[in-house]
């Protein structure tokens, strides 16, 4: 007697086009993290510095005209590109961003390779580019919580409290600079994480590798700088490069450890190198080699 108690029925319903096939995979990659309390706590902690920005916005917009508060407000930082750059690239935010990178990034491709679900996904009408896009988009979504989302909320808050759009005209770079920072910095970081994650079948090994690249690379750059006193020592530090890119994109009035040329070179190399590795892993040799 067959094990099934219901016969096979053909499917005659609708089928979606090929272009949006990545969306279910993206959803399935991102949602499980949002159900984890520890991960949510991490995201909440990541936006804590932005409450400072919101508080400053409130004070400047609400008390800016009050004579008695002028001295007090004068001592506080203004809400501008420099403040946003500091909030984007402060040590706390970058540290948490690296933790999220390692948490999410280490398993992006490695887990699929370990569980052999990569061949199952790619055995569907889902090309390698769509697969990588879905994975990258899930990580990118979390990166936006560190960048574009709080900046947008800050701007909306500012415009709402001040009652006019002047802030957008005078400090428009806050938005497009953050967008550029997200696209270049976090985009290349996402590609790099996809690339590292595709190199091993073990998310743990990938995680250790990422910790090495992120934190030990930073420490090694610092030691090298202490020895040589050359600012070129920071070139290979991922974290100093992210900080420098934030300052550069927002045109902040903060001294950067890395020149714009070095920064541009670093992120170009990171992006091209990652794309090259991904092409070899997913294209030239077949997806599973």
């Amino acid at each position, binding site marked *: 007697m*067959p094990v099934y108690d219901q016969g096979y029925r053909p*499917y005659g319903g609708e089928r*979606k086009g090929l272009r949006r096939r990545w969306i279910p995979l993206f959803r399935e990659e991102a949602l499980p993290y949002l159900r984890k309390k520890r991960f949510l706590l991490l995201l909440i902690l990541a936006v804590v510095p932005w409450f400072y920005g919101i508080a400053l916005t409130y004070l400047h917009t609400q008390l800016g005209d009050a004579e008695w508060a002028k001295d007090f407000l004068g001592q506080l930082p203004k809400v501008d590109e420099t403040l946003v750059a500091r909030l984007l690239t402060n040590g706390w935010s970058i540290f948490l961003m690296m933790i999220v990178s390692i948490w999410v990034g280490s398993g992006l491709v490695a887990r699929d390779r370990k*569980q052999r679900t990569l061949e199952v996904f790619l055995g569907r*009408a889902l090309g390698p580019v769509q697969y990588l896009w879905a994975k990258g988009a899930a990580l990118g979504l979390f990166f936006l919580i560190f960048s574009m989302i709080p900046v947008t909320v800050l701007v909306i808050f500012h415009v709402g409290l001040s009652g006019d759009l002047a802030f957008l005209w005078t400090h428009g770079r806050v938005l497009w600079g953050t967008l550029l920072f997200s696209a270049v910095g976090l985009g290349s970081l996402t590609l790099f994480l996809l690339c590292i994650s595709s190199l091993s079948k073990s998310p743990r090994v990938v995680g250790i590798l990422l910790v090495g690249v992120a934190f030990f690379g930073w420490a090694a750059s610092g030691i090298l700088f202490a020895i040589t006193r050359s600012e070129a020592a920071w070139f290979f530090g991922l974290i100093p490069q992210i900080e420098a890119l934030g300052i550069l994109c927002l045109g902040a009035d903060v001294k950067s450890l890395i020149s714009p040329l070095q920064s541009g070179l670093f992120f170009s190399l990171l992006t091209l190198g990652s794309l090259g590795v991904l092409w070899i892993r997913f294209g*030239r040799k077949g997806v599973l080699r």
Partner: protein
Amino acid sequence: MGVLAVHGVHVSYGSTKALQGITFQVKGGAAGLLGPNGAGKSTLIKALLGLVPLSSGSFTLLDRESRQLGPALRDRVGYVPERDGVRAGMSGVAWVSLLGELSGLPRRAAIERSHEVLQYVGLGESRYRDAATYSTGMQQRLKLAAALVHDPLLVLLDEPTAGMDPKGREEMLDLCRDLVDQGKTLLLSTHILKDVEAVCSEVVILHRGRVVAGARIEDWTRSQAQHFLVQWHGKPEEFRDACTKAGWEVGRGENGLFRVVLPQEEGPRSVFSVADGLQGAIHRFVREETSLEEVFLEAVSKEVPLEEPA
């Protein structure tokens, strides 16, 4: 033209030639892909799915070139991987419906369909459990459900009964037979010959990346039907000479036991007619059954030249 036609497919991993000019056709029903470990069965399946690039050659699915179909080809193909291939932490129904969505089914339809196929493969009761807690047999069925969720025309099964107990194996083979009855075409890659005998009507034998034999199992059985074992009680030389005179192939007769091969146009009665004119009698007359196993062993024992690395 059949459902699947493979023309001169070559696949190389660096200097290693994994597949060398594979050509065969599957007209429909179930076809077995047999071969020892390392013969290239899994590579061929991955090549058909586009997971491994072809060095040369092509294949057609329902008369359409694989290159013409592109990724849409995989909407018509279901794949049951050999090992793992199940996401830990997801329930059976969540996993199958995700794969349904990846194959283009709208979310709601994918969920409904995943319930249906899980019921069909016998996992109805366990569909809400974490797939990582499933037994090997349940995982194999889950993979079959995932391969069927988008209602493919061709199902590629890579060792579908691997690690299953005899009962589970039989149930899986039952499902395969039922799918063939439903009009699906199955390509069953395995090294378990009994699975092929139980399900398939055709077989392709691979060895060292080449097709070394291939035919309908029925034809093989028919060709073997003309082999007989005859126990002759009388003078052995006399019987041998008579058979040879009749134009039959006669094997060495120890203790009066002969292997006689009759041409297609003659039947067993001919042997008794010949024996009638001799001094002696046939004590035993048995049709010699050659199993697929013997055919397989003969095919893979042939020396296949290894091509020099390019």
